[in-house]
């Protein structure tokens, strides 16, 4: 007979795995498309963006979960935006202080995390209804799913577009880089193929 503890473990496990595949924000829910298309020309900025989103997701989910009982329904979106904007500003300052080159490379896309649908969606769907620990697990899961999706997309674009991976030459010298993949059009093409692949795998599984 299943105990309450088993049920709780199952909930945490399901939440943790949801963001990585079943409810992956980029590949299944198609959220956060702006950074997905804009910062995936190389793995390094994509990974940095992913880490920034994880930081903001965890901090905003913690804050929203803490004040969930006090939230007025008609003011909740305002409170979410205020919370998210605060942590995005802090993430931007941290990046400027400790990773100035990445901060310059990501440019306006770090402040634009404020309007990233993933974060406000998790605040609304999970953190405003669940206790703090589950909200943290949800944030880590969704953040990891977002980061992995960005890095996979960036990896494809960087390897085929420049012959490098994480700025290290991996393709033979004879390889002619597909420059289009490093350009904005390459982001749409690579994302389209990746989404098609994910849909194919899902259909085969079901």
């Amino acid at each position, binding site marked *: 007979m299943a105990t309450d503890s088993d049920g709780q473990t199952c909930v945490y496990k399901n939440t943790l795995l949801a963001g990585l595949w079943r409810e992956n924000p980029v590949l299944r829910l198609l959220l956060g498309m702006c950074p997905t298309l804009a910062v995936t020309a190389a793995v390094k900025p994509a990974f940095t963006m992913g880490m920034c989103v994880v930081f903001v997701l965890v901090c905003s989910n913690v804050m929203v979960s803490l004040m969930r009982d006090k939230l007025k329904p008609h003011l909740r979106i305002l409170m979410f935006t*205020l919370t998210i904007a605060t942590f995005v500003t802090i993430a931007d300052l941290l990046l*400027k202080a400790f990773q*100035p080159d990445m901060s310059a490379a990501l*440019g306006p896309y770090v402040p634009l995390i404020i309007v990233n649908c993933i974060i406000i969606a998790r605040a609304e769907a999970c953190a405003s209804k669940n206790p703090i620990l589950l909200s943290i697990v949800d944030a880590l899961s969704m953040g990891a799913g977002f980061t992995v999706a960005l890095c996979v997309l960036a990896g494809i674009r960087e390897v085929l577009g420049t012959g490098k991976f994480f700025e290290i030459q991996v393709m033979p010298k004879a390889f002619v880089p597909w420059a289009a993949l490093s350009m904005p059009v390459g982001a749409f093409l690579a994302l389209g193929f990746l989404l098609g692949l994910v849909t194919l795998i899902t259909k085969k599984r079901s």
Partner: protein
Amino acid sequence: MRSIRHFFEQSWLLIVASFFFGLLIAVTNAALSPRIEQNRNSKLNELAGGLLPDATAFTPVAETIEIQALDGKQQKLAVYRATTGSQTVGWVFQVVGSGFADKIELVVAVDAAFTSLAGFDVLASNETPGFGDQIKYGYYRDQFKGAPTDGLTLVKSGDPATIDAQIVAITGATVSSTAVVRAMDHYLPQVKTQLQQKGLIGHGN
């Protein structure tokens, strides 16, 4: 009285959260701003070195250089003397323009006599990638190398390879191109006058 009570009942969390988050940002900013400033100075030195490759040292000018910024406010400007040994090879300072999305911060280098530009580089900008951020690229920046420090004008068509006071705008990035030229035209004459007044460059230049 009831309406005030209703207001506080509805919005107390918002008010408290605003103060708390404001404080959090202020504390973080205070803690990190020295390091951010240090990073900016390192980048400024690095960019200045690229603009004046002959220079071996960049020393801040001891005299106070006060100019009027684009927004009309008086500001103290840090001007660096670029030297090779004891010889002055140029001057470096920062100018701020008003770009499409945000401020554009540029590092500008001029020759020792303050007659022609040695070039500029972008210290910070949030211009649209693929459009306004083209001001960072050589095909726009190279037009400024050797251009006069007085009376730069922006033109929509022309030969960018010709070095003169006419700067050819980037197609699709007119606002950003204009911002750079406007910032130069605003800052350069003021800095030149100040340096002349302080006796750091000759009046005949």
